[in-house]
């Protein structure tokens, strides 16, 4: 078995495993109950895409792919920071069903409390 054949086999196995990881992360993004869960999944997706590009760089032999991976990491970091600011400013309006239930239970109590305090 030649060295290039060993590297090609390992690259194919790594691509298959990374594709499976991409699918699992996409499942979390679709199913994630809140916006923050989806942002975590997006961050993870960027990391897996960087790994994908690195494996493609090994497979094809083009070293320029590494620069593309670095710039994708920069864009992913900025996207996560922007989403964190967005979560901070918007709050958890579209929360999970369990959180919604607790909020609905809380709101009537507060409304009932305020007139009691005022009167």
């Amino acid at each position, binding site marked *: 078995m030649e*060295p*290039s054949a*060993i*590297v090609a*086999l*390992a*690259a194919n*196995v*790594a691509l298959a*495993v*990374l594709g*499976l*990881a*991409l699918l*699992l*992360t996409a*499942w*979390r993004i679709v199913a994630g109950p*809140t916006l*923050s*869960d989806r*942002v*975590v*999944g997006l*961050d*993870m997706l960027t*990391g*897996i895409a*960087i*790994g994908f590009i*690195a*494996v493609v*760089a*090994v497979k094809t032999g083009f*070293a320029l*792919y*590494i*620069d593309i*991976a*670095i710039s994708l*990491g*920069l864009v992913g*970091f900025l996207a*996560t*920071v922007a*989403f*964190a*600011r967005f*979560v*901070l400013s*918007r*709050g*958890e309006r579209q929360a999970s069903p369990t*959180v919604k239930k607790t909020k609905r239970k809380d709101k009537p109590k507060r409304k009932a409390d305020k007139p009691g305090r005022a009167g």
Partner: protein
Amino acid sequence: MDYAIAILVSLLMLGGAFFAFAAAIGVLRLPDLYSRMHAASKAGTVGSGLLLLAAGIYSGEGAILARAIAGIIFLLLTAPVAAHLLARASHATGHKVWDGSVRDEMRKR
């Protein structure tokens, strides 16, 4: 190409793919936003870093290896910052921790 470099690059690629897969399982299966974030930002960063290191070693040129190592350092610096910002924003907007969590030191602030 030497056998040693080929086997080293293969092991780095398989290890990086394994870490990325473990991080994806953690993101999917862990019960809480904060524990999912710990899986994504630690194991995911190690996975991408190992794959970038494999690509840099395989090229065989010093400049490209240096660029790959710069990318790894960039990932190691930015992943904790992004995870910290997101966890802080989620906690500030009232995201509950999991019932099985032992303590929440940020609650009283």
